[in-house]
């Protein structure tokens, strides 16, 4: 799995590629919290277009990002979820808690 960060306007976009499971989900958590807590970015957008699979530990990292964004008054946005990612969020009853968009254009324009 790889994570890279880029700036678009006032947002930081984190591009993730590969699969997110318990072997690497701490990296996702770390990257999210670095942007949301340490850098205080007002809008963090997670690009999951390149993610084929995400397990419950990956979901837990997303929940940590969501909580951190609520605590800091910033926004945490997801886009590019495939069927697998949507299903795991849905089965965890978390899908509606996240701001989710289909693509980057929508996520940035939101």
């Amino acid at each position, binding site marked *: 799995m790889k994570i890279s960060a880029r700036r678009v306007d006032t947002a930081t976009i984190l591009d993730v590629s590969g699969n997110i*499971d318990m*072997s690497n989900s701490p990296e996702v958590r770390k990257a999210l919290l670095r942007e949301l807590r340490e850098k205080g970015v007002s809008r963090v957008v997670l690009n999951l277009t390149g993610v084929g699979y995400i397990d*419950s530990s990956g*979901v837990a990292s997303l929940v940590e990002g969501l909580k951190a964004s609520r605590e800091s008054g910033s926004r945490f946005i997801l886009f590019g979820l495939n069927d697998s990612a949507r299903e795991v969020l849905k089965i965890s009853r978390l899908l509606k808690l996240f701001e989710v968009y289909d693509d980057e254009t929508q996520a940035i324009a939101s």
Partner: protein
Amino acid sequence: MKKSAKLTRAFLLKLELRSHPTLLCVIRGALGPLMEMLGFSAEHNREIIRAVDEAVSNIMRHSYRGRLDQPIEVYCNRLQRRTNGETEQGVEILLFDCGPAVDPTKLPARPLDEIRPGGLGLHIIRGSMDSVQYKRAGRLNQLRLVKYARSSKGDCGSVEEKP
């Protein structure tokens, strides 16, 4: 793993691996084509892979407490059942580990209305499979997961299964 605990039945697939999280992708990669071959839809295929991945992750995390070199065995086999005069094809997946016995009443599954990380694995397993059964088999933990090709999620196997 002790020979006495090994199964004598012929299985479609048997995997022996160590409890290293980097091997989770190997299990997912092996199960996908097998479930496709058994006739599962793409959605059911994802559910089975998700359930097994979460179950193996739980073994690594809870049963072996993060130790990376402990044995895990995964067996897959076909199942059939008759419902309303129709034969349904299914799969049985058995997972074995040598960790301490598990008290099923104390397995961590948090209420889903709590917004906090962790405790989702069991919900995902139960929500993805038709039947989830744990038992202690000698010195091993055995988790049995069953899924039928035309089943609806959460219908916990009230129909007779024929291995």
